């Protein structure tokens, strides 16, 4: 009963904050609301007996991603240009499409009768680590390369070079 109440509370908070994320005018606020949503998700994970994930969620998402986003906004908006009004037509179209998608999804969810029902067993970090090193070893390795690629790629993109200025000759070596 308590769980259900918590869930109801968390869920409604999430929906509200989610709405703020996508609907708010101020982009900085939106990012902050995203942080709220992500943190609430961590709560939800706890309800789902996944403490390890909840921790990761807080660290990686609510901490990392939100910070990154804020950086992104700050770097690309000089003075207060964070208020960007969405066009009315697009809002309507977007709402229609999103509504339709939600209707379809919820329809599918509701018409799927027999869903498995979870227990109370908590998955430990050790179990997850075990899985990483056996069944998902290859995926793990690939993921590491992926993260490397993403880092290198992001650096390659964000570094000032090529565009605008011409770095001549061997002297360019110093840029790295």
């Amino acid at each position: 009963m308590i769980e259900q109440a918590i869930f109801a509370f968390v869920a409604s908070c999430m929906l509200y904050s989610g709405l703020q994320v996508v609907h708010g005018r101020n982009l900085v606020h939106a990012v902050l609301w995203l942080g709220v949503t992500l943190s609430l998700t961590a709560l939800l994970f706890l309800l789902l007996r996944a403490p390890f994930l909840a921790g990761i969620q807080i660290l990686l998402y609510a901490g990392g991603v939100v910070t990154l986003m804020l950086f992104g906004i700050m770097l690309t908006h000089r003075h207060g240009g964070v208020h960007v009004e969405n066009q009315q037509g697009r809002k309507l179209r977007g709402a229609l499409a999103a509504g339709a998608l939600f209707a379809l999804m919820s329809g599918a969810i509701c018409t799927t009768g027999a869903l498995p029902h979870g227990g109370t067993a908590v998955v430990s970090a050790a179990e997850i680590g075990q899985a990483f090193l056996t069944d998902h070893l290859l995926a793990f390795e690939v993921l590491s390369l992926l993260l490397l690629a993403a880092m290198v790629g992001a650096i390659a993109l964000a570094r000032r070079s090529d565009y605008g200025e011409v770095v001549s000759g061997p002297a360019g070596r110093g840029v790295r």
Partner: protein
Amino acid sequence: MIPLHAYLLLAAALFTLGVYGLLTRRNAVGILISVELMANAVNINLVAFSWAHGGTVGQVFALFAMAVTVAEVVVGLALVILLYRSRKDVLVDQARDLRH
């Protein structure tokens, strides 16, 4: 107990909120945020299913999804910065040199 349906509906709702943002945000960062919301909904799904089925697979999947999403965000932000440098704004509906 909370039925699985509830989690799924919540995830679906968050996902479609993200879709709404994706479709309406003009600011590139806004779009990134919206995609984050969608990815987050997936994670709820995965963890909820993992809880339902027991075992680690779902959570492992969710972890992979998180990592990948973060990687995407990193690249995305770099792209946004690049865009900003080349165009002096990050409104996606202004970046329309390539069309028709």
